[in-house]
């Protein structure tokens, strides 16, 4: 049990790397930095392989239970005396451990995260070779790996949240890596804050779970969920809880309406986009929902919401992707769209299909991003596809691997994406044909925009603006191309791990995941598997056709796109094109209405509008009240002076004189300090008291 027993070391390897960078990074050579940081991830990968292998051997003997390793009590006093009241009135104590859990679900994530992560680290040594802040970059990357591994391996929601926030932070740091650029730091802020909104949902969801179950350990939560017999009220709370968790997932996995940060996140270096914003971090939402499957199953309404949001996101993002010109943005919207697919799968109850898509997607999307990075590297930083073209000869390795990835994502049979996507579509059909229809349309669009990308970049005539750039185009170094090749390999063959029965496959991954999704299978069991039916094959054929159609359309439109080519959509429906190009104006809408970053006329709405109003309120009303009290006091003091001056001396002293002598002494109006006035006040006081008491 060398690896399994010390599984807590897994996140610590990259953490050590990050710590070394933090303290000594500035003084280290680039080579040393690479060695330390890549080395730590390689170590983590090897350890992950070892641990998973050991787990696979260990599990059958232990009833396929998850392996749990608790290091120490993190939150809570560990005496059981710090209690709270559960929803049913019983006591539970606050406890969140620094504990790690390995089961099939986390195994899968563990493997592809460390694997892809390792490749991207290697790729980065080449990509970032000429950039400043090398150590900083790798420190952040390592920190990200640490957070991601914590997220994956956590044995309770709170520790998961640690990783969850940690990856958000690293995403923030890495998006803002080029912090001198305003757009980069803006995007970083946006990413973090939008994620925080999701996190707020996550926290609340967690509290609901703790309130209902009395614990946040996955094992406890699952056993609570499996125990059954819930009152309607509890089920209602469970629905709320799962919906809140899903809000968190929406934030992290860029679903409607919180997807807005992901396209902007492309401001970061490309390896970051590949690692964080395509392969790993953004799937955390999927992971979380899959992890909480026992609860989601109990809340069908939440499941429906997940499915609908997933489907809508898929088609929404895909439609935007149709017309984007920035190569990374196309991929970003593609990612959002694919994540939508995954949630669609989860929502319809096909958890393992969703997980499988995550798995395959990790490879081909990472590959796409890295390929895009390679293209950008070759083009000296140019990202606009309108200024590319005809690169297939010049960067052949990149070109070939990109082709593989495109075929995979488009769902061409034989490539990884086909298997996973098709499984999802089939499950969606079983749930409701409408969802399938959306998924199908999305598949068509996916194929179109991916091939559009391919044509515009590699095949169509060159539209490169400057000769210098054109002259400079070169294939990337080995450190970058080798990861591409490895990823291409997996983009083809990863799919064969879970070929469905209808195609004679064994569904290895489904079987492997079975203990995790036990509740799902139990629930589905009565419905019964009707075996591969005609419908399934028909649908499969339809989606293959869609993929092909997309390809053909793209080829027709962009195969010979020269300078100043026209977009087919722009030609057909200019308003639609504008809307799509401007991403349905969602960012603008948010800026005007939700955040208030932009003013609507003279009025600022949204949070900042509220903030402005509060600020005004604070300085004018509240502090105003305080100051007014002071002001009134002082003016009362002034008033008593004034009173002495004008009323007492003016009316009291001068008034009668004025009346009697008809304003003959206007110049003497200002006389004060008179003894007799004092005496008069005394007398008047005495008279007042006397009248009061004698006639009271």
């Amino acid at each position: 049990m060398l690896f399994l027993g010390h599984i807590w070391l897994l996140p610590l390897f990259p953490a050590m790397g990050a710590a070394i960078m933090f303290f000594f990074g500035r003084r280290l050579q680039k080579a040393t930095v690479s060695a330390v940081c890549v080395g730590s991830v390689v170590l983590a990968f090897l350890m992950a392989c070892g641990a998973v292998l050991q787990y696979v051997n260990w599990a059958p003997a232990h009833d396929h239970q998850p392996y749990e390793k608790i290091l120490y009590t993190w939150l809570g006093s560990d005496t059981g005396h710090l209690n709270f009241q559960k929803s049913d009135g019983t006591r539970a104590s606050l406890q969140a451990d620094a504990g790690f859990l390995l089961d099939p679900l986390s195994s899968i994530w563990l493997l592809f995260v460390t694997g892809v992560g390792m490749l991207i680290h290697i790729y980065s040594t080449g990509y970032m070779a000429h950039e400043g802040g090398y150590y900083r970059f790798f420190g952040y990357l390592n920190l990200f790996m640490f957070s991601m591994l914590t997220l994956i391996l956590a044995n309770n929601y709170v520790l998961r949240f640690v990783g969850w926030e940690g990856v958000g932070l690293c995403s923030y740091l890495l998006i803002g890596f080029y912090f001198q650029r305003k757009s980069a730091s803006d995007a970083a802020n946006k990413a973090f804050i939008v994620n925080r909104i999701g996190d707020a949902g996550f926290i609340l969801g967690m509290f609901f779970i703790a309130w209902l179950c009395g614990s946040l350990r996955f094992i406890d939560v699952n056993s609570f969920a499996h125990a059954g017999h819930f009152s309607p009220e509890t089920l209602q709370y469970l629905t709320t809880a799962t919906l809140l968790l899903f809000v968190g997932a929406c934030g992290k996995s860029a679903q409607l309406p919180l997807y807005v940060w992901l396209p902007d996140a492309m401001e970061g270096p490309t390896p970051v986009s590949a690692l964080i914003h395509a392969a790993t971090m953004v799937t955390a939402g999927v992971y979380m929902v899959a992890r909480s499957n026992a609860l989601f199953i109990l809340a069908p309404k939440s499941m429906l919401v997940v499915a609908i949001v997933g489907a809508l996101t898929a088609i929404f993002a895909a439609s935007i992707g149709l017309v984007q010109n920035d190569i990374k943005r196309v991929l970003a919207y593609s990612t959002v769209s694919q994540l939508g697919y995954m949630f669609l799968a989860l929502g319809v109850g096909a958890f393992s299909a969703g997980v499988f898509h995550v798995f395959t997607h990790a490879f081909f999307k990472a590959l796409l991003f890295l390929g895009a990075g390679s293209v950008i590297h070759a083009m000296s930083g140019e990202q606009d596809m309108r200024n590319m073209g005809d690169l297939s000869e010049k960067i052949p390795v990149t070109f070939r691997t990109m082709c593989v990835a495109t075929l995979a994502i488009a769902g061409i049979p034989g490539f990884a994406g086909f298997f996973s996507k098709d499984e999802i579509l089939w499950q969606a059909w079983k749930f409701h044909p409408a969802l399938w229809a959306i998924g199908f349309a999305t598949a068509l669009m996916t194929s179109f925009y991916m091939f559009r990308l391919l044509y515009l970049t590699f095949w169509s005539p060159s539209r490169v603006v400057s000769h210098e750039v054109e002259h400079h185009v070169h294939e990337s170094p080995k450190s970058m191309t080798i990861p591409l090749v490895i990823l291409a390999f997996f983009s083809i063959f990863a799919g064969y791990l879970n070929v469905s029965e209808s195609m004679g496959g064994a569904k290895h991954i489904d079987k492997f995941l079975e203990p995790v999704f036990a509740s799902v299978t139990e629930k589905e069991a009565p419905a019964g598997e009707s075996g591969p039916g005609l419908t399934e094959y028909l649908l499969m054929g339809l989606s293959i056709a869609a993929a092909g159609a997309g390809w053909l359309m793209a080829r027709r439109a962009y195969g010979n796109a020269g300078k100043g080519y026209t977009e087919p959509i722009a030609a057909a429906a200019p308003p639609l094109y504008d809307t799509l190009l401007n991403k349905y104006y969602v960012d603008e809408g948010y800026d005007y209405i939700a955040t208030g970053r932009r003013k609507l006329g003279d009025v600022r709405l949204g949070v900042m509008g509220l903030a402005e109003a509060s600020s005004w309120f604070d300085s004018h009303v509240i502090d105003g009240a305080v100051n007014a009290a002071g002001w009134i006091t002082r003016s009362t003091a002034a008033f008593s002076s004034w009173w002495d001056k004008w009323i007492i001396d003016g009316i009291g002293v001068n008034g009668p004189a004025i009346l009697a002598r008809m304003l003959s002494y206007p110049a003497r109006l200002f006389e004060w300090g008179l003894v007799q006035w004092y005496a008069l006040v005394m007398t008047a006081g005495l008279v007042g008291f006397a009248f009061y008491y004698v006639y009271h």
Partner: protein
Amino acid sequence: MQSHILSIILFAPLVGALFLLFVPKENKDAIRWIANIFALAGFLVSLPLVPMFWAQRFEPGFKFVEGAAGNWIPSIGAGYVLGIDGISFLLIMLTTLLGWISILSSWTAIENRVKEYYIWFLFLQTGMLGVFMALDFFLFFVFWEAMLVPMYLLIGIWGGPRKLYAAIKFFLYTLAGSVLMLLGILFLYFHHHSVTNPQVYTFSIVELYHTAPQIYSDYGPRVATLLFLSFFFAFAIKVPMFPFHTWLPDAHVEAPTAGSVILAGVLLKMGTYGFIRFSLPFFPNVMTNPATLLGMTVRGWMIFLSLVGIIYGALVSLMQKDMKKLVAYSSVSHLGFCTLGIFALTPLGLSGSVLQQINHGISTGALFLIVGILYERRHTREIAEYGGISNVMPIYATITMIMFLSSMGLPLLNGFVGEFTILQGTFMENWKWGAWAVPGVVLAAAYLLWLYQRVFFGTVTNPKNEKLNDLTPREVATFVPLLIMAFWIGLYPKPFFQILEQPVNHTIAMVRPDYPQPAVNAAAPTAPLVVPASGVPTTTTPSAASTSAPPKMKGTK
């Protein structure tokens, strides 16, 4: 045999102040050295308290009690009685630590009237420690008021351009609250006399715990509520709760850096401490009174004000143009969490609240130091004056980032632990309260990150910023303890929870006798207690911890 460690801790800074009196004021460096040595000594003498307290952290009642009731002014029954429990222990340690750090941070910041500065500062230190140690209401009040004076002078003499306004506002505002508290104290005093047999006049807090709750039945809810309010104003102004907060931004902006650190780090905690130590146990029935006041119960109002404070403070921070003011308003938001946790009246909320008070002391203290460092170099705090500071001061930028993250409650840093516990404690009481507080967390990220972006990111646009020096070793030294504490609490908060367990459960038992308390033989710790990283020796074995008596219910007859 009484232990005198509390008195030693209490008067160590005062000794330093008296010593400084005899140093000629021209010799500035000597004064600085002596002040720093005494500040460090003040911190060091408090360190032995850690193992001593740790050994008896689960035992009920106050520890290290010193003096006897009525030994100071026998004729009115006021005594010099000191004693601590877990809550005050943590706050005392925070005070000694921050006191040392702020004195260290003033080395170059204070150039004129150095001697006075340090004398007043050390004096202030004693006042604050006294507040947390006093077990006699009268002694408490004396310290509470006495510490206003040095703070007033620190703001007023060494402050910014509007220092007079700020200093007077601070003094008057706080005093206005506390005088009403004095009347409340006197009421309790007479009530105690009237219900005890034989009739005794005393200010002893432990004694008053027994009688004060009876006011509700003796005089009716209205009087009890008014009495609660008389305490409430004192504490709410100190905290400050919305809408009594406007002295805070002014005081912070004008105060010298070290003053701000102490103000935010320790002074504000006196308000929350007062709530926990006095308001809750004295007026349990007011807290649980279902009758409404202007449409809400008293407790509902407290929660409401806390929630408003959280959101409102964050919103106002968002719009600030002055860095220090931004941090000041963020304090309003953070302290909103603390009061929310207190009035949630659950053990979790309460312990989270105390922990968050410590956290706020650490992170906001550090934030003020951070602002102070820029101010010392550029003499402006306008955010617009900066930009791209990361390029010229990378170490500074890194430390700032960590502290910002700590302040916004990122997990594995201290802020998260407190906020999470508070929110959970509140949520378990009423999930809507918890839900309303959560936007504060989001907004915290917004205002802090935006600030960071504007100050640190981008390129250096202002030529004046091009030649800024990065941190000196002394400045780094001021941050190191804070960073260590931030990570410690973030990674391993268990010792803190254990220290807080007994007082928190005890307090809740006093406020809500019906709240389920831990069983007598609760489960033993599941894992052996680990020696904390700071080298605090563990003298209690798990078995000892499990056999230690659970908190007894006191004060409710």
